[in-house]
């Protein structure tokens, strides 16, 4: 194991998959000559050439559709969105064409495509550039959605996504690109299955269900709570769809108390679905109502103080944990 950044981990995943399969190519805005708006594709143009690392004009709908068409005839495109906020311009291709093709063709055409890029609020980018899109896309049958929070998960999930025979969205965490973590050496194949959550910290009093940018938040809060003798278990979903119900239920069977901390909006957010599944399957295991911490239900303000107030934070999460623990 060695320590690398989330950005490097993604870069390694891309390079390894491009190396492994000649049908894999990377396409998007500024991915080649500029090395990626967030430098995730650094060095790939030099290594794999312009045939496989392809700059596009600013035409998300066009190049997302191009990827779907190329996948129909057997290529395995990796389509980068500069941010998933811009993927909304390509919503029709991601929602109508990529996941529906397999059904509409009666199983003749699966679409082995990966859509990837940063997702979720960053810092003072305001409403148009701060979308957390996971709940939009997870509601579409035929799509798979994952949300890596650590370098290791980023690498392992992206590689799995590229090999998956379905459209997979890898929603990277914009604020975590420079974060560091331990990852297996490059000569050791790292694949992390979609639909497998990961207990990032064990605990016995309360389960904090989190993903993406809320994982470091949950871990920080868990450490703080330890000082107050509350033992929090941190369950990182890693994939929104498929959802690892078993991991969630196993944790709750142990702690009997749950807080879900999510980076999207509260109304029809990921936490709403998780809540439903918990109460439906293991209602008897609960000792307190489930609480959710999410964004406030407003478009993201630019103002820094207001933005902080909109986002989930340690204060809100601690308060929620204490409430479910009746502490």
């Amino acid at each position, binding site marked *: 194991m060695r320590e690398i950044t989330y950005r490097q981990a993604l870069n390694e995943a891309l390079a390894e998959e491009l190396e492994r399969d000649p049908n894999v190519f990377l396409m998007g805005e500024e991915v080649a000559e500029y090395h990626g708006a967030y430098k995730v594709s650094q060095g790939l143009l030099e290594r794999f050439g312009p045939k496989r690392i392809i700059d596009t004009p600013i035409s998300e709908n066009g190049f997302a559709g*191009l990827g*779907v068409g190329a996948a129909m005839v057997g290529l395995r495109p990796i389509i980068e969105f500069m941010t998933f906020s811009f993927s909304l311009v390509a919503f029709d291709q991601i929602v109508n064409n990529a996941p529906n093709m397999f059904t509409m063709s009666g199983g003749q055409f699966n679409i082995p495509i990966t859509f990837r890029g940063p997702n979720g609020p960053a810092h003072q980018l305001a409403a148009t550039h701060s979308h957390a899109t996971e709940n939009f896309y997870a509601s579409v049958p035929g799509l798979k959605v994952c949300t890596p929070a650590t370098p290791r998960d980023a690498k392992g999930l992206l590689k799995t996504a590229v090999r998956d025979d379905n459209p997979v969205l890898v929603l990277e965490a914009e604020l975590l690109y420079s974060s560091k973590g331990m990852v297996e050496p490059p000569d050791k194949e790292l694949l992390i299955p979609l639909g497998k959550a990961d207990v990032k910290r064990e605990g016995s009093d309360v389960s904090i269900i989190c993903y993406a940018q809320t994982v470091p938040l949950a871990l920080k809060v868990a450490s703080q709570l330890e000082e107050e003798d509350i033992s929090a278990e941190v369950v990182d979903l890693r994939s929104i769809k498929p959802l690892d119900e078993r991991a969630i239920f196993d944790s709750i069977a142990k702690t009997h108390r749950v807080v879900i901390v999510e980076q999207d909006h509260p109304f029809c957010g990921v936490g709403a679905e998780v809540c439903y599944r918990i109460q439906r399957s293991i209602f008897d295991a609960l000792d307190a109502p489930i609480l959710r911490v999410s964004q406030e239900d407003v478009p993201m303000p630019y103002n820094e103080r207001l933005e902080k107030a909109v986002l989930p934070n340690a204060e809100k999460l601690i308060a929620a944990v204490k409430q479910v623990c009746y502490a």
Partner: protein
Amino acid sequence: MQRGEQRDEVEMLSLMLLIRRFEERASQQYQAQKIGGFCHLYIGQEAVVAGAVAAVRDDDYIITAYRDHAHALARGTSTDACMAELFGKETGCSRGLGGSMHFFNRQNHMYGGHAIVGAHVPLAVGMAFAIKYRGEDRVTLCFFGDGAINQGAFHEALNLGALYKLPIVFICENNLFAMGTSVKRSTSLKQIVDRTEGYDIPGEIVDGMNFREVRDKVAETVDSIRKEPHPAFLEVRTYRYRGHSMSDPASYRTKEELEKYRLDDPITRLRAQLTREGKLTNEQFDLLDKHAKETVLASVKFAEASPELPLEKLYDYTYADGAVAAGRLAVSDRARAADMAVTTEQKG
């Protein structure tokens, strides 16, 4: 390579007849409520797809919009599979999951059947991208209507196709109406083909009621693309005799206009050309027509007798890697049982 001129014209006339008789029968079955949803008929436009298909190889890629029955038939999909699809049966060309607007035939390189106007044009560009990526000499034919040319996806796709110099023929089947809106009311240009100038794509106008002209123009274009990959654009002027869909009485146009085009019927015209040249007798034509009618009628019987996809297979066509939906993967038996209970409840 199988050059266009070598495709037998009588065979292509026979295809055009088959398309027309299929569409007439589909219309009748729709009225009899055997077919649900939307149903867009190709009657009047037969020379476009027949001419184009006659000019290309069987391994070239074809993709179209929702007026797609003819394209599937032209690519050798059986009338049985097409009619069964309209009836929503498992024996249909998309197992009854796609319906009229989503005909697919992977084996014969017919890539759908796409119902969001303009949204398949980027897909076609992606297929052409794959051809160039693999260094093949195939060509993609992308059909769409005059309504598609004002969609953003269309413009983005044309730019990408031109930028990457991809082997694709954009075939605009200009039947003068996007649903009920005439080209004059939808498009800022006097002629659609001029749109291509903005993308530095060569474009030509083709008489879509003339099989031979369509075939020869497509053949010429495709030959040029095979030598050096590039996009091309053909505005093929045609006319649909029926409304936009089955529910459209087409009151936005005059009877006189329709009659004018009927007099220029593509089947009548090719028949006359072949008869004049001594390649087809009236008896032979009648025989072809009789055969087409019988084939189509048999397909109705086939569709009626065919089974529907069983409910147990509902989840088999959502993800390519499993019979269960992602939301159901890796769940406990208890949760799965609860899921099933909820599903049953919703059905009830």
